[in-house]
């Protein structure tokens, strides 16, 4: 049951707002053909290393939601999410766990928005990794939507993959 692009885009936008703003107190600006050109200082730098996290969506849709983001943004979001961190506590393990949790929360809110708030859904357990380029992220070989967002001067990419997306 393929879902139309506009419904996906709208649901994801609302889910991104709820997830990022509540968890990390940041705003995600969609980067698409409808977005007015950003001021130079807000144009994100390209990624040279990619941290990724994914959460499987099991029911009622079949798919996966991926987050792709650079280490700098990963660390920033982790610090914002934690609020209080001891000196030297911010390590790679913590950062990767944080972005995995972010993908989990985003997946939940996204599916909830698609279902308009009142149907049962099931998610799988998140996975995460770090690679030297987007090309190495283990995206599945299925139809997918790729949406870029500007977050605090960096690019965060959301990939929705699966037969229903």
């Amino acid at each position, binding site marked *: 049951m393929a879902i139309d692009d506009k419904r996906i885009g709208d649901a994801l936008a609302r889910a991104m707002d709820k997830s990022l703003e*509540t968890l990390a107190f940041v705003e995600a600006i969609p980067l698409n053909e409808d977005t007015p050109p950003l001021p130079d200082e807000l144009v994100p730098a390209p990624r040279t290393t990619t941290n990724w996290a994914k959460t499987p969506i099991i029911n009622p849709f079949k798919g996966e939601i991926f987050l792709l983001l650079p280490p700098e943004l990963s660390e920033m979001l982790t610090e914002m999410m*934690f609020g*209080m961190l001891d000196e030297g506590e911010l390590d790679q393990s913590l950062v990767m*766990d944080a972005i995995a949790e972010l993908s*989990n*929360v985003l997946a939940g809110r996204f599916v909830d928005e698609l279902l308009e708030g009142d149907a049962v859904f099931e998610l799988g357990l*998140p996975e995460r990794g770090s690679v030297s380029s987007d090309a190495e992220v283990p995206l599945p070989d299925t139809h997918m939507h790729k949406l870029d967002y500007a977050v605090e001067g960096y690019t965060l990419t959301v990939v929705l993959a699966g037969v229903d997306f």
Partner: protein
Amino acid sequence: MKILVVDDSATMRRIVENNLKTSGFEDIVQATNGVEALANMAGIELVLTDWNMPVMDGLSLVKEIRSNPTFANVPIVMITTEGAKEEVIQALKEGVNDYIVKPFTKQVLLEKIEKVLEG
């Protein structure tokens, strides 16, 4: 008050713990799944648990707690991504006292805790 925080995500455990500690709750125990939680129930006065976890999920944990006479009356709040009405009803039927959908604010967390402790 001794509070047990159960979630497979270290991030979520820390977020909850930070929110609790900045609100004056100092005695926090963490567990990464339901089995670990059951092993750490001694003296616990409130359980905050995720639903979707490996090894033993939150709903199974709730059932185990409610079937144990020693812990049957410990208040339990479920904190999870699954927020549909049917799932909330299922959790409440199994003995959860209240339910928080992620993402949540510190205010919501504290309000729910206050509500279940008063109840």
